[in-house]
């Protein structure tokens, strides 16, 4: 594929991510922060996000499997995850964190378990999408095309 087509594909894909709610404005902000001093900013931040989220999701799973569930600790974890996801613009993940928090406050274990599954699902979805996105960007830059403006 030539640069122009790749570019077009990237633009369409990005648009899709936005319209389906996977990403929001905040992601655009991240893209705007990428400059000559910081050429890999977005990738770096998103990688951090992946690491952090996986850790937090594991912690949540562990907490929920305990005999005595520490709701406070879970609340702290999900608060962190909510903060991270909103910082990168992972909109759907953020929304699922809010639902989880509600269940947690109500001390509804069933609800929490269900919600956790949903969160994991959303996370893996957005992870896939972002990885594809970065892939496309990578391809575009190797073919020498200029990246589209955020």
């Amino acid at each position, binding site marked *: 594929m030539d640069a*122009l087509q790749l*570019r*077009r594909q990237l*633009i*369409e894909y990005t*648009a*899709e991510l*936005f*319209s*389906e*709610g996977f990403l929001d*404005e*905040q992601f655009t*902000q*991240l*893209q*705007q*922060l*990428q*400059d*000559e*001093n*910081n050429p890999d*900013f977005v990738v*770096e*931040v998103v990688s*951090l*996000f992946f690491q*952090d989220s996986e850790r937090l999701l594991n912690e949540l799973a562990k907490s929920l499997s305990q005999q005595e569930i520490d709701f406070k600790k879970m609340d702290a974890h999900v*608060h*962190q995850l909510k*903060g*991270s996801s*909103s*910082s*990168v613009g992972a909109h759907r993940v953020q929304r699922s964190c809010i639902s989880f928090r509600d269940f947690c406050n109500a001390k509804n274990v069933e609800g929490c378990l269900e919600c956790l599954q949903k969160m994991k699902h959303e996370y893996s979805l957005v992870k896939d999408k972002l990885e594809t996105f970065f892939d496309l960007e990578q391809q575009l830059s190797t073919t020498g095309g*200029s*990246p*589209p*403006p*955020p």
Partner: protein
Amino acid sequence: MECKCFDPQWPADELLMKTVAIVMTTAKVFTAAVSCITALMLVHIIPDLLSVKTRELFLKNKAAELDREMGLIRTQEETGRHVRMLTHEIRSTLDRHTILKTTLIELGRTLTLEECALWMPRRTGLELQLSYSLRQQNPVGYTVPIHLLVINQVFGTSRAVKISPNSPVARLRPLAGKYIPGEVVAIRVPLLHLSNFRINDWPELSTKRYALMVLMLPSDSASQWHVHELELIAVVANQVAVALSHAAILEESMRARDLLMEQNVALDLATREAETAIRARNDFLAVMNHEMRTPMHATIALSALLQETELTPEQRLMVETIMKSSNLLATLINDVLDLSRLEDGSLQLDIGSFNLRSVLNEVMCLIKPAASVKKLHVVLNLTEDLPEHAVGDEKRLMQIILNVVGNGVKFSMEGSILVIASVAKAEFLRDTRSPEFFTVRGDNDFYLRVQVKDSGSGISPQDIPKLFTKFAQNQSLTLKSTGGSGLGLAICKRFVNLMDGHIWIESEGQSAANRVQNSFPGLKVLLVDDNSVSRAVTRGLLLHLGCEVTTVSSREECLHVVSQDHRVVIMEVCVSGVDSYDIAVQIHGRFTKLHERPLIVALTRNTDKLTKENCMRVGMDGVIVKPVSIDKMRTVLSDLLEHRVLF
């Protein structure tokens, strides 16, 4: 002689004497008895007599006293009647002079005064001037300084004070030798100011200005001031004060009313002039409208017909140019007319229900031909929350979007145009940079957000303000293209404003890549955030703005690292926020001098007042609400550095 009468035992004269003796004894006995009885009775009678006499005396006294009291009551009643009448007279008028004159006359009559006068303080407040007098019609020229002992005495009490007839205020006419002047009484009359009448406040007792009322009894009459008369004077003085202030208020309000009337007249005139001007302009436009369009349409129609005929290639080219120019001219005329109607507010939106999605799709259809000619790719993106139908001005909305997208196509050489239509979220609305943009939302209203992103050459920052100004052309743009009457975006802006919306452009300047904005070169910032991801993002934001950023992830680290070098400390404040508040307190404690202490800013998602208040309380200099855009951070930092405070 013998007589059958019997021989009395006793002789006749003895019998007579005996009878007399018996009678006398009886009489004596009776007399004695009577005397005895009288004497006995006298013992009882005398105290009774005495008591009767005493009672008589007592009753007489009482009667005299009652008489006196009756006299007093009658006088008081009369006085009271006088006061009521006086008050009635005074209150029945709102004219200051009448009030005072009436007072003096009535007082003079009631109390049979020789002279009654009123001294008013002069504007300077240092002298009293004789303003009204009973006997003299137009008193002129008499003034006394206000700081005389006798005057101070009178002003110091609210009661009537007897003063010497020789004091300057009482000497109203030349003293002739043989007159013994009558007693003089003076009393203060408080002059209440408008400002004393505040709502829910009583007038202050310490009013600064008093007038002096002087009352003189007739000379050579030896009459004296009675207590009830002095009381009457005090009452009257108060009434006068109230009546005077009413009169003053009335004068004020009448003056204000006159002023208002003048202003109204002036405004009316201005309105009429403006209306005349507008009507003249509209007439002109209407005429021009018709006059200009007719030849225009003729040219266009005939050129079109000409194109249908047999033409040589050169002729065809010429006719095409004529068509193009005429069309441009027609558009320009329409635009000018539209704009002037927009500007004077006479243009009204045609509100109706329409299919939002189909409008957007139609715009795409219209623009695709032009785009594909330039090998540009146009993509339309409709978010899922966009409603199918909407109520608004369909035609003009399409005009606006078409115009903007058209500009995108016109000024892009290669690449693609992306149009995203969505429903604007609350955070977005709050964040828009324009101070004139107030969002007004009803329950059923929504803000349609249309983003048109192109990959054109960009617009330099100095040209941006001119974009939406009519007739202002950008030098660089005119070189490139043939389009652009210079009005299109101006009209778009007007239409958008009419719809209570906002339109703006964000351009990266001459290159497509993001530039580092060196807004705050070398500004040392300490960032405190325990969330690694959000910390990285904020750090990136600050680096992009040219700051030198140090990051820490905990309270301890922060306090360990913070120093005078750091100009700003930005800390993430979450719901509990206990740690962050404590950091602020600690920093205040450590850096007591204002210029040494770094500015402390909280970064939070919370928008509630409590968070803000807590931050203020612990001495933070500002609060930034997430999400933060580059522009927001830039604005915040520059405000902070300039004013040292954000609240």
